[in-house]
Protein backbone atom coordinates (compact mmCIF):
# COMPACT_ATOMS: atom_id res chain seq x y z
CA UNK A 1 0.00 0.00 0.00
CA UNK A 2 1.42 3.36 -1.01
CA UNK A 3 1.96 5.88 1.76
CA UNK A 4 1.23 9.57 1.81
CA UNK A 5 3.10 11.32 -0.97
CA UNK A 6 3.94 14.98 -1.33
CA UNK A 7 5.15 17.00 -4.27
CA UNK A 8 7.51 18.69 -4.70
CA UNK A 9 10.05 17.52 -2.15
CA UNK A 10 11.80 20.88 -2.32
CA UNK A 11 10.79 24.29 -3.64
CA UNK A 12 12.86 27.44 -3.74
CA UNK A 13 11.01 30.60 -4.73
CA UNK A 14 11.42 34.32 -4.41
CA UNK A 15 9.38 36.49 -2.13
CA UNK A 16 6.14 37.49 -3.82
CA UNK A 17 5.90 34.40 -6.00
CA UNK A 18 3.24 31.72 -5.78
CA UNK A 19 3.83 28.11 -4.84
CA UNK A 20 1.43 25.17 -4.81
CA UNK A 21 2.14 22.09 -2.73
CA UNK A 22 0.37 18.83 -3.37
CA UNK A 23 -0.49 15.94 -1.08
CA UNK A 24 -1.82 12.54 -2.08
CA UNK A 25 -3.19 10.74 0.99
CA UNK A 26 -3.40 7.00 1.46
CA UNK A 27 -6.22 5.67 -0.67
CA UNK A 28 -9.47 5.47 1.28
CA UNK A 29 -8.42 7.93 3.99
CA UNK A 30 -11.12 10.53 4.41
CA UNK A 31 -9.11 12.67 6.82
CA UNK A 32 -6.29 14.82 5.50
CA UNK A 33 -4.20 17.21 7.59
CA UNK A 34 -1.65 19.89 6.76
CA UNK A 35 1.08 20.83 9.21
CA UNK A 36 4.08 23.14 9.03
CA UNK A 37 7.42 23.24 10.80
CA UNK A 38 9.36 26.49 10.54
CA UNK A 39 13.02 26.62 11.50
CA UNK A 40 13.61 25.96 15.18
CA UNK A 41 9.94 25.61 16.00
CA UNK A 42 7.57 22.73 16.61
CA UNK A 43 5.32 21.17 14.00
CA UNK A 44 2.11 23.19 13.93
CA UNK A 45 -1.33 22.20 12.71
CA UNK A 46 -2.66 24.16 9.74
CA UNK A 47 -5.93 22.52 8.79
CA UNK A 48 -7.97 19.34 8.59
CA UNK A 49 -10.15 18.07 5.74
CA UNK A 50 -12.82 15.43 6.06
CA UNK A 51 -13.28 14.33 2.48
CA UNK A 52 -13.60 17.61 0.57
CA UNK A 53 -14.82 19.68 3.51
CA UNK A 54 -12.67 21.79 5.82
CA UNK A 55 -13.25 20.47 9.33
CA UNK A 56 -10.87 22.87 11.04
CA UNK A 57 -8.74 25.58 9.46
CA UNK A 58 -7.88 27.40 12.66
CA UNK A 59 -4.16 26.93 12.13
CA UNK A 60 -3.95 28.67 8.77
CA UNK A 61 -1.64 31.67 9.34
CA UNK A 62 -3.36 34.18 7.09
CA UNK A 63 -5.30 34.60 3.86
CA UNK A 64 -2.21 34.10 1.73
CA UNK A 65 -2.69 30.39 2.31
CA UNK A 66 -5.40 28.49 0.44
CA UNK A 67 -6.02 24.78 0.81
CA UNK A 68 -8.30 22.76 -1.41
CA UNK A 69 -9.32 19.14 -1.68
CA UNK A 70 -11.59 18.89 -4.66
CA UNK A 71 -13.26 15.51 -4.95
CA UNK A 72 -11.97 14.47 -1.57
CA UNK A 73 -8.81 12.85 -2.92
CA UNK A 74 -5.58 14.81 -3.21
CA UNK A 75 -5.13 18.21 -1.64
CA UNK A 76 -3.24 21.34 -2.63
CA UNK A 77 -1.90 24.11 -0.46
CA UNK A 78 -1.22 27.36 -2.29
CA UNK A 79 0.80 30.21 -0.86
CA UNK A 80 0.25 33.48 -2.70
CA UNK A 81 2.21 35.69 -2.43
CA UNK A 82 4.95 33.91 -0.52
CA UNK A 83 6.80 35.76 2.25
CA UNK A 84 10.14 34.98 3.87
CA UNK A 85 8.49 33.70 7.06
CA UNK A 86 6.65 31.03 5.05
CA UNK A 87 9.88 29.06 4.72
CA UNK A 88 9.76 25.69 6.42
CA UNK A 89 8.73 22.09 5.94
CA UNK A 90 5.10 21.44 5.11
CA UNK A 91 3.79 18.03 6.11
CA UNK A 92 0.64 16.31 5.04
CA UNK A 93 -0.92 13.44 6.96
CA UNK A 94 -3.95 11.25 6.45
CA UNK A 95 -6.03 8.97 8.63
CA UNK A 96 -8.86 6.59 8.03
CA UNK A 97 -11.19 7.33 10.92
CA UNK A 98 -12.43 10.65 12.27
CA UNK A 99 -10.59 12.01 15.27
CA UNK A 100 -6.91 12.90 15.34
CA UNK A 101 -5.03 11.09 18.02
CA UNK A 102 -6.98 7.91 18.65
CA UNK A 103 -6.55 7.02 15.02
CA UNK A 104 -3.11 6.79 13.48
CA UNK A 105 -2.09 9.68 11.28
CA UNK A 106 0.32 8.70 8.51
CA UNK A 107 2.68 11.47 7.52
CA UNK A 108 4.19 12.22 4.17
CA UNK A 109 7.89 13.09 3.78
CA UNK A 110 7.16 16.80 3.64
CA UNK A 111 7.86 19.60 1.20
CA UNK A 112 10.74 21.87 2.12
CA UNK A 113 9.86 25.41 1.04
CA UNK A 114 12.49 28.10 0.92
CA UNK A 115 11.44 31.67 0.21
CA UNK A 116 14.32 33.97 -0.75
Amino acid at each position, binding site marked *: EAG*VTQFPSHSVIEKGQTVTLRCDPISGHDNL*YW*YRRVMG*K*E*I*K*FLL*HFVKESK*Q*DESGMPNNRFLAERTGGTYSTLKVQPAELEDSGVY*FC*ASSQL*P*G*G*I*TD*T*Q*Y*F*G*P*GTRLTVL
Partner: protein
Amino acid sequence: TQLLEQSPQFLSIQEGENLTVYCNSSSVFSSLQWYRQEPGEGPVLLVTVVTGGEVKKLKRLTFQFGDARKDSSLHITAAQPGDTGLYLCAGAVKTSYDKVIFGPGTSLSVIP
Protein backbone atom coordinates in the same frame (compact mmCIF):
# COMPACT_ATOMS: atom_id res chain seq x y z
CA THR B 1 -2.62 28.00 24.58
CA GLN B 2 -1.48 24.46 25.17
CA LEU B 3 2.26 24.01 24.91
CA LEU B 4 4.43 20.93 25.11
CA GLU B 5 8.03 21.14 26.22
CA GLN B 6 10.58 18.42 25.61
CA SER B 7 13.92 17.80 27.30
CA PRO B 8 16.67 17.43 26.57
CA GLN B 9 16.67 19.21 23.24
CA PHE B 10 19.73 17.28 22.07
CA LEU B 11 21.20 14.03 23.33
CA SER B 12 24.30 12.18 22.14
CA ILE B 13 25.11 8.85 23.74
CA GLN B 14 27.16 5.72 23.15
CA GLU B 15 25.63 2.52 21.87
CA GLY B 16 24.41 0.38 24.74
CA GLU B 17 23.59 3.24 27.11
CA ASN B 18 20.16 3.93 28.53
CA LEU B 19 18.36 7.24 28.17
CA THR B 20 15.14 9.00 29.07
CA VAL B 21 13.48 11.91 27.30
CA TYR B 22 10.70 13.96 28.79
CA CYS B 23 7.60 15.71 27.55
CA ASN B 24 5.91 18.21 29.86
CA SER B 25 2.99 20.58 29.80
CA SER B 26 0.92 22.67 32.18
CA SER B 27 -2.16 21.46 30.31
CA VAL B 28 -4.05 18.20 30.58
CA PHE B 29 -4.24 16.15 27.41
CA SER B 30 -6.82 13.50 26.61
CA SER B 31 -4.03 11.34 25.20
CA LEU B 32 -0.45 11.64 24.09
CA GLN B 33 1.59 10.20 21.27
CA TRP B 34 5.28 9.68 20.61
CA TYR B 35 6.70 9.85 17.10
CA ARG B 36 10.14 9.30 15.62
CA GLN B 37 11.25 11.32 12.62
CA GLU B 38 14.29 10.61 10.47
CA PRO B 39 15.92 13.13 8.09
CA GLY B 40 13.91 13.68 4.93
CA GLU B 41 10.92 11.78 6.22
CA GLY B 42 7.73 12.55 8.07
CA PRO B 43 7.06 11.58 11.69
CA VAL B 44 6.18 7.94 12.29
CA LEU B 45 3.90 7.04 15.17
CA LEU B 46 5.49 4.89 17.89
CA VAL B 47 2.77 4.76 20.54
CA THR B 48 -0.39 6.36 21.89
CA VAL B 49 -1.04 6.53 25.63
CA VAL B 50 -4.50 7.36 26.86
CA THR B 51 -4.86 6.60 30.57
CA GLY B 52 -3.07 8.51 33.34
CA GLY B 53 -0.25 6.34 34.71
CA GLU B 54 -0.29 4.09 31.67
CA VAL B 55 2.94 2.34 30.72
CA LYS B 56 3.51 0.84 27.29
CA LYS B 57 6.51 -1.10 26.06
CA LEU B 58 7.70 -1.43 22.50
CA LYS B 59 10.78 -3.69 22.48
CA ARG B 60 13.52 -1.59 24.14
CA LEU B 61 11.30 1.51 24.39
CA THR B 62 9.14 2.19 27.45
CA PHE B 63 6.56 4.96 27.40
CA GLN B 64 4.80 6.37 30.44
CA PHE B 65 1.91 8.81 30.70
CA GLY B 66 1.85 10.87 33.89
CA ASP B 67 -0.91 10.31 36.41
CA ALA B 68 -2.27 13.82 35.81
CA ARG B 69 -2.00 13.39 32.01
CA LYS B 70 0.24 16.46 31.75
CA ASP B 71 3.55 14.75 31.10
CA SER B 72 5.14 11.70 29.57
CA SER B 73 8.50 10.01 29.32
CA LEU B 74 10.24 7.76 26.84
CA HIS B 75 12.94 5.46 28.12
CA ILE B 76 15.24 3.58 25.75
CA THR B 77 17.26 0.65 27.08
CA ALA B 78 20.56 -0.29 25.47
CA ALA B 79 20.33 2.29 22.71
CA GLN B 80 21.30 1.23 19.19
CA PRO B 81 22.50 3.40 16.27
CA GLY B 82 19.16 2.68 14.61
CA ASP B 83 17.44 4.59 17.41
CA THR B 84 19.00 7.81 16.13
CA GLY B 85 16.38 10.35 15.14
CA LEU B 86 14.10 13.13 16.30
CA TYR B 87 11.61 12.06 18.96
CA LEU B 88 8.43 14.09 19.08
CA CYS B 89 5.65 14.02 21.61
CA ALA B 90 2.19 15.18 20.61
CA GLY B 91 -0.81 15.82 22.81
CA ALA B 92 -4.46 15.62 21.88
CA VAL B 93 -6.64 18.62 22.57
CA LYS B 94 -10.34 17.94 22.64
CA THR B 95 -12.29 20.02 20.14
CA SER B 96 -14.91 18.47 17.94
CA TYR B 97 -12.23 15.88 17.31
CA ASP B 98 -8.74 15.29 18.72
CA LYS B 99 -6.51 18.13 17.53
CA VAL B 100 -2.81 17.35 17.78
CA ILE B 101 -0.27 19.68 19.40
CA PHE B 102 3.40 18.80 18.86
CA GLY B 103 6.37 19.38 21.12
CA PRO B 104 9.65 20.72 19.67
CA GLY B 105 11.36 17.34 19.75
CA THR B 106 14.46 15.69 21.19
CA SER B 107 17.24 14.98 18.71
CA LEU B 108 18.95 11.71 19.66
CA SER B 109 22.26 10.55 18.27
CA VAL B 110 23.52 7.08 19.19
CA ILE B 111 27.21 6.65 18.44
CA PRO B 112 28.43 3.14 17.53
